[in-house]
């Protein structure tokens, strides 16, 4: 909200502002730091899944992979598939709204004026989301503090703020808008570094002109210009010194002029995921959300040959085989995106540490519904990937209708943040789900 201060804080051009550009931790990391990095990414796709093409039949390590999860086969041993986890939140708002607003908060929606397809109108969620909660914890500790703490990515999120388009919350009534434009995200992450180059590119003209003016102006006024020239020179030297000190991070190259439109969803998703992985390499943040479209999302996956919008298809009854083949295709595509992110993280070494980024990162893939046509909030298709939280991975788990608040608690505990409840307390009585 407070643009004046944010503006200053986010700009940093000279050494005085360097802590914001580079996290001292990333240089000092490794053996000298007993705390290993831990990261969380929440990946969201909408409208529920196709249960029979998603859930493994077997429990345990030796589980079967159904069509939707096929893209993740290579990472089977780093994955948890969690059946039986349910969003139990009641109250105002239709299920697409509650499914979205309560997914990461575990807290009801406030009454409000957003009217869904059924039920009473509602407003925003009444609690903080798990990604922001963990960000606060990590940012409070100098050893785990990063430049941004958290990053909120989106892909083709409609340009309106409502209960269906927001899942991350700073607190009650405080939704966070995801950034769905890769160029805007790039600017947030690397804008300063680009500007350093721009400034460096103009300072020589400025200096030359200041000198020229000093030579033709009266003696008394010359002092002012000479003083000014000194400041400009000092800035130029600073920029050069910063460059040779290797301040400039790996800055990803983005394809230019990719417009925000339906058919570019695959391309934008890749760009955003590359930016996400890069931001982890630079240690800009430890938690992130990645929201593909929105609750009730209507992408038309023309690149799969599908002409109908996703949400529209998701309303078709189970017996419509053709529609469900398409829904399986659609969900498989989402899983391919998960697989791409997983692969990128697995292939990228942990800077200053051991192993790969995936060894220190856990991805939670979630959805606002269990299945689209019934609008059920039971059996949300939750999948976890990666080893950021020391869970015992490579299993299919079948829980008995447990509130998802307990899953959120498990994640908090995985970060060493031992909350006694998260979101609505009555759903937390039995504590975190045991995943280790």
């Amino acid at each position: 909200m407070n643009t004046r201060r944010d503006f200053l804080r986010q700009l940093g051009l000279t050494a005085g502002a360097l802590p914001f550009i580079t996290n001292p931790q990333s240089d000092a990391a490794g053996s000298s730091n007993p705390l290993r990095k831990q990261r969380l990414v929440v990946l969201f796709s909408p409208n529920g899944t196709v249960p029979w093409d998603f859930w493994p039949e077997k429990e345990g390590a030796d589980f079967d992979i159904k069509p939707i999860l096929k893209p993740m086969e290579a990472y089977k041993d780093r994955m948890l598939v969690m059946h039986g986890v349910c969003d139990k939140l009641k109250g105002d708002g239709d299920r697409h709204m509650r499914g979205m607003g309560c997914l990461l908060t575990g807290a009801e929606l406030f009454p409000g004026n957003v009217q869904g397809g059924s039920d009473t109108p509602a407003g925003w969620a009444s609690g903080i989301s798990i990604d922001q909660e963990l960000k606060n914890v990590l940012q409070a500790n100098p050893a785990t503090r990063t430049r941004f703490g958290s990053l909120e990515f989106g892909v083709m999120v409609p340009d309106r703020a409502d209960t269906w388009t927001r899942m991350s919350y700073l607190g009650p009534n405080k939704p966070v808008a995801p950034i769905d434009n890769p160029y805007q995200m790039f600017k947030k992450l690397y804008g300063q570094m680009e500007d350093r180059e721009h400034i460096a590119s103009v300072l020589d003209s400025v200096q030359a002109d200041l000198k020229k003016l000093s030579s033709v102006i009266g003696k008394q006024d010359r002092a002012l210009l000479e003083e000014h020239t000194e400041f400009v020179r000092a800035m130029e030297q600073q920029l050069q010194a910063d460059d040779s000190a290797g301040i400039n991070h790996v800055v990803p190259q983005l394809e230019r002029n990719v417009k925000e439109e339906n058919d570019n969803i695959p391309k934008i998703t890749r760009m955003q995921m590359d930016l996400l992985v890069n931001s982890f390499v630079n240690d800009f943040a430890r938690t992130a959300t990645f929201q593909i479209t929105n609750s009730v999302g209507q992408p038309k996956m023309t690149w799969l040959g599908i002409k109908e919008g996703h949400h529209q298809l998701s309303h078709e009854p189970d017996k419509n085989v053709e529609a469900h083949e398409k829904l399986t295709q659609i969900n498989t595509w989402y899983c391919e995106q998960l697989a791409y992110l997983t692969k990128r993280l697995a292939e990228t070494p942990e800077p200053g540490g051991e192993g790969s980024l995936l060894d220190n990162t856990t991805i939670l893939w979630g959805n606002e519904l269990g299945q689209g046509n019934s609008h059920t909030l039971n059996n949300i298709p939750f999948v976890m990937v990666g080893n950021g939280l020391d869970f015992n991975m490579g299993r299919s788990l079948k829980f008995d209708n447990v509130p998802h608040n307990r899953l959120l608690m498990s994640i908090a505990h995985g970060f060493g943040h031992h909350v006694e409840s998260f979101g609505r307390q009555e759903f937390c009585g039995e504590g975190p789900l045991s995943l280790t």
Partner: protein
Amino acid sequence: MPNHTPNAGQHAVCVAVLLLFLPGLTTSAAEIDGARVYAQKCASCHGAAGEGTPDVPQKLFGDRSAFDLAEVITRSMPEGEPEECQGDEARAVAKWMLTEFYSPQAQARLNPPQKSLLRLTVSQYRNCVADLIEGFTWASQPGEKSGLTGRYYKSKSMRDSNKVIERLDSMVDFDFAEGTPGEGFDKPEEFSVLWDGSLVVDETGWYDFVLKTENGGRLFVNDTQNALIDAYVKSGDTDEYTGARFLLAGRMYPIRLNWFKFREKTSSVRLMWKPPHREVQPIPSRHLSPEHTSRVLVVETPFPPDDRSSGYIRGTAVSAEWDEATTYAAIEVADKLPEFLRSVARLKKGDDEQQRREKLQKFCQDLAYRAFRRPLTDEQRDNYVDRHFVDGTPDEIAVRRCVIGILKAPWFLYRDLGDPNDLHAVAERLSFALVDSTPNPDLLQAASKEWIKSDDGLDHYAWKLLNSYRGQVRLQEFLRVWLNMERLHEADKQADLYPSFNREILSDLRTSLEFTLREAATSEDGFRQLLTTSEFWLNGRLASFYGHDLAADTQAFQKVRLEPTHRAGITSHPFLLASLAYQDVSSPIHRGVFLSRGLLGRTLKPPPDSVSPTAPDLEPHLTTRERVIKQTSPQMCANCHTMINALGFPLEEFDAVGRHRTAEKDRPIDATGGYRLRDGRMKQFRGAVELSRFLAESRETRRSFARQLFHHMVQQPILAYGADTIDQLADEFSDSDLKMNSLMVNIALMAARPAGKTDP
């Protein structure tokens, strides 16, 4: 001290003064050699020409009249043995000192003030950037109508077919309760309103906007794409939303509020703001206009404050912080520009890549021309624009580098570089003087076509600038500076003594004074009105507090006569009276300093020893007047306080919150005071009304006003324009029947004309 004695007695003393001293000055004092007396009795401490010595390092200069100076010498010099230099001798030495080195004129002769190289002040930087962009688009001027256009729809969606009402709403402050805004609404639970138009802003600073509604809405201020307040989702009990914008004075900004009711039982909507130095209030009608206008590019980057050590703001110093701020600001402009680019560079949908690039390059060249305020040399065009458009550099990066380079260039940051006689330099000086900013395209054209070569031409463009809303606000801004209003924002009062004097009252008082300033700035007779008006702007809250019979629930400010036998002019405006007072008691010293330094233009040096005022409870039996006289009676204090106190005492009719009073500590108020004119005569007055009459007629008030206005507009020492410039301006001011805008034009022309050329 004659001016502290009751009226009749004082009169007698004054006559005596006239009879005894004036002839003395012209005859016997002339026979004594002032130079010799000074050398014998003064120079050993003060130096041969008042330059000071190790024992008494302070330089001797000031603006006392010969009469005053002689009196100080008689009373206190040489230190410890004032009897050594008395009467004619004192007068002779005073007269000699005055002409040799003491007076401002002598100082100007000894150390001729120079014009300095100036960089843009913070205000100029912000104005220049906003005007550079505006020059490529357009802007509205406030029209006759005030308020916003309200379009009322019988559904949440604002479709034309659902529109029920379209009207001008003076403010957005409605409580529809469980009902609808009028006839023709189908459902009381669902309707919507779109308000739009412009904000009219006459003071620069941060404005906090507050939307209060139990329903939903989005507020757009100076940005039609991104909402400043997005309260479209009603959630829980939240019914108040805020957002802030930095706005520059003298401009209009697009504003739009989309508001709707959906299934809530009741509805209400209130659009408020908190202007600088004031409290949250519904946005008043006079700051709203149904006209449309285009967005303004406002730089929000904080800058270090400008130098004001010479008594007025000017850009004569640079620092690392300033240099860094100019970098941040250039980046801010580069960040914001893309949203303006389509209109400023005249980009069209059908443009191919080549056309687009050419238009962008042309725009950057024009931008450099306007930013540098003169035609570009080939070298400048190449360095600041063309070289960034080399092959392979993407358009947006080329534009970004151009913008950053142009805004970092000395040609933009410094004023008046190059040949001072060039007409572009003339245009530049004229524009900075009149609107504190870069010349607009109209004036640049007039420069290149030589339309401002003649005096008539220049005069024409001066009036054109001044007659814009920017010109009016420029004068209003100066009046605030003249009254030192920026520094007067802490006037908390002791709650047990003034229980109902709260922040709202203080905020209303400032608004009331603003009304007076605005009215004066647009009136032919504004200067006299400022000093003598018996009409003040009050709302119900102020009326109740100050005992006027205007209905207490009156929201809008109205002009009323307030205690006309006691109050006249801004010097008895309760805002100034309350601000120039302590938390518990009035302060004749603060009021007197304000009158002598601010209005009469007297130089006051800081007290030789820092003294804290005697607390009232240490002298419980004394009135404020008595306590002040007692404390300032030592010779060291009296040299200045004789004048200060006598100017402050007439306002003793008003207490610490500016309410009229007739007694203090059960004794009647003594509101007599006076001022010693430069010729030695004592002018006496009692109470605020006589004081205001004196100020309005005093040449010193006019001289001081002209001098301060000059410094505010030109930011160069006025004596650098000739020793008689102040008197010349003051004469013209008097001759024009005190028209402030004529004075402004005279000053602007004086500043703008090529060096050496003066008014015929």
